[in-house]
């Protein structure tokens, strides 16, 4: 398997796809920080560069879907998977090595985001104000989140025999995960109550009052009961949602779930890949 990993890593650097992804990350990440630096409103506090890690995370999710399906889809398209099988490698080794190589590529991309954010952030925004714990949590959540996402995209790329179909499926999956994550965080972060002073006097009768506390009213947008449980489950399952809501407190449950998801996705992918006929 070491041979396959080595060959995969070398191929990763021989083709343009990774460099294009890094260039896109550089442009998007750098542009965001430079724009903030140049066009910030006078007197407004500079944001923490850590905030830009989130946008880098989202861009990397999308680019990793593109990279993995393009990188592995090419093996189907060009028929080069056959060379690996004929060379006496079993399918398990091929699958695991593909996962490792793709994960390395994703980590290179996200590592690049951290480097870029830290460099431009320190230079233009004055460096991180987030605590070390918060940054560590961000790192851990994104590290595990990308493990799960890589496992998902590798499954799609290796088990869908068409490169274009695989790419489209992975990009749709990436968008779905991102939208799902953002929406879940938005919904779960809606407060249960609203202070009365924040509501216009003529609108107040429309709100349900809290019997014990006249200073607040019930927020009609607050989701509770069974629906909240659903969104909380989605939050636990979705690495993007965990990344967005990352704080100083480590989200141990979320991390464990990401690990479990990775294992399930890898096992399912290997099973499908092992049983499918290759052309």
């Amino acid at each position: 398997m070491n041979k396959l990993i080595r060959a995969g890593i070398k191929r990763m650097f021989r083709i343009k796809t990774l460099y294009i992804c890094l260039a896109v990350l550089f442009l998007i990440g750098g542009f965001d920080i430079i724009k903030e630096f140049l066009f910030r409103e006078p007197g407004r506090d500079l944001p923490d560069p850590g905030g830009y890690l989130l946008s880098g995370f989202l861009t990397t999710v999308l680019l990793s879907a593109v990279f993995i399906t393009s990188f592995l889809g090419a093996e189907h398209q060009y028929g080069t998977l056959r060379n690996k099988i004929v060379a006496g490698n079993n399918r398990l080794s091929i699958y695991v090595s593909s996962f490792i190589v793709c994960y390395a590529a994703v980590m290179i991309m996200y590592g690049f985001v951290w480097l870029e954010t830290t460099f431009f952030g320190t230079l233009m925004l004055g460096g991180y104000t987030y605590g070390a714990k918060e940054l560590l949590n961000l790192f851990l959540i994104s590290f595990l989140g990308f493990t799960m996402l890589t496992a998902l995209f590798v499954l799609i790329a290796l088990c869908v025999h068409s490169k274009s179909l695989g790419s489209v499926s992975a990009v749709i999956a990436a968008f779905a995960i991102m939208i799902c994550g953002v929406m879940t965080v938005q919904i779960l972060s809606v407060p249960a109550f609203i202070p009365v002073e924040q509501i216009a006097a003529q609108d107040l009768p429309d709100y349900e009052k809290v019997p014990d506390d006249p200073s607040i009213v019930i927020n009609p947008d607050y989701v509770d009961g069974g629906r909240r449980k659903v969104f909380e489950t989605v939050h636990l399952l979705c690495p993007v949602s965990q990344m967005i809501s990352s704080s100083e407190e480590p989200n141990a449950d979320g991390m464990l779930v990401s690990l479990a998801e990775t294992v399930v996705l890898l096992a399912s992918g290997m099973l499908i890949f092992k049983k499918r006929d290759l052309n």
Partner: protein
Amino acid sequence: MEYILKTNCLTKKYKDFAALRGLTMSIPKGSIYGFVGKNGAGKTTLIRLICGLQDADAGEYELFGVKNSEKDIFRSRRRMGAIVETPSIYLDMTAEDNLKQQADMLGRPSYEGIDELLHLVGLKDTGKKRARNFSLGMRQRLGIAIALCGDPDFLVLDEPINGLDPQGIIEIRELILTLNRERKITVLISSHILDELSKLATHYGFIDHGQIVREMNAEELERACRKCIRLTVTDVRALAMVLDKMGIEYKITDDHHADVYAKPILSAITRELDQYGCDLISADERDESLESYYISLVGGGSHE
């Protein structure tokens, strides 16, 4: 005789279609084995099975003496190189990078020998040109170079001359002959272009509807396809008596025709036939090709 590949009753089904129905064949070491059959006969399916791309539903095969059910089959496969249908090459890489990639995948410690391989397949001067911009023949040759990268003892080529121009066909033919004669590589080659195959193969396997119809070596095929003179007469029984009397080998094909496997003196035959009141109407030289022999074996039914 030592065999590189032996299959025993291999069966493979795709849903309701049986691509292989108990296929049994043997490829002798050092041979160029021509695998002949029409589209859908099961040639590529067999190649896919022995390459490990698919699993058989029943039956077994031995590659270098190792059964497909044994763990060592993966090690045996390292001794083979293959092109299945289309050459397996990275189109976004140069010929040299493709070979380096294959060398990395095989775990070779260095890129030594890559120049020699490029020279062997005639792609030494392709420089930075990506495989995407190669002609079909160049891609085919690069595919062969990749298959040769692991110094295989057994080369499997599935339709290697499909779509090539005459020059490309000659180049591939010469290359295969060189590999077989100089490097002692056993070659399994499937092809539709039967006359071309007859210039290469030392052994043949004729496949039809997922079964081997006949296996034979080149000498046997030559005997089966040998030249003859077809005589057309008014009385074939009289002709048989005359030919028996003259000690000439023949085969009666119908009431008026017989194939004579020698160079008979026609005037002598005519004189003898005259005594039986039989006329010699015509004498045509016939040369049964591999193609016509194949048709006689499997019939000229529609292609699937």
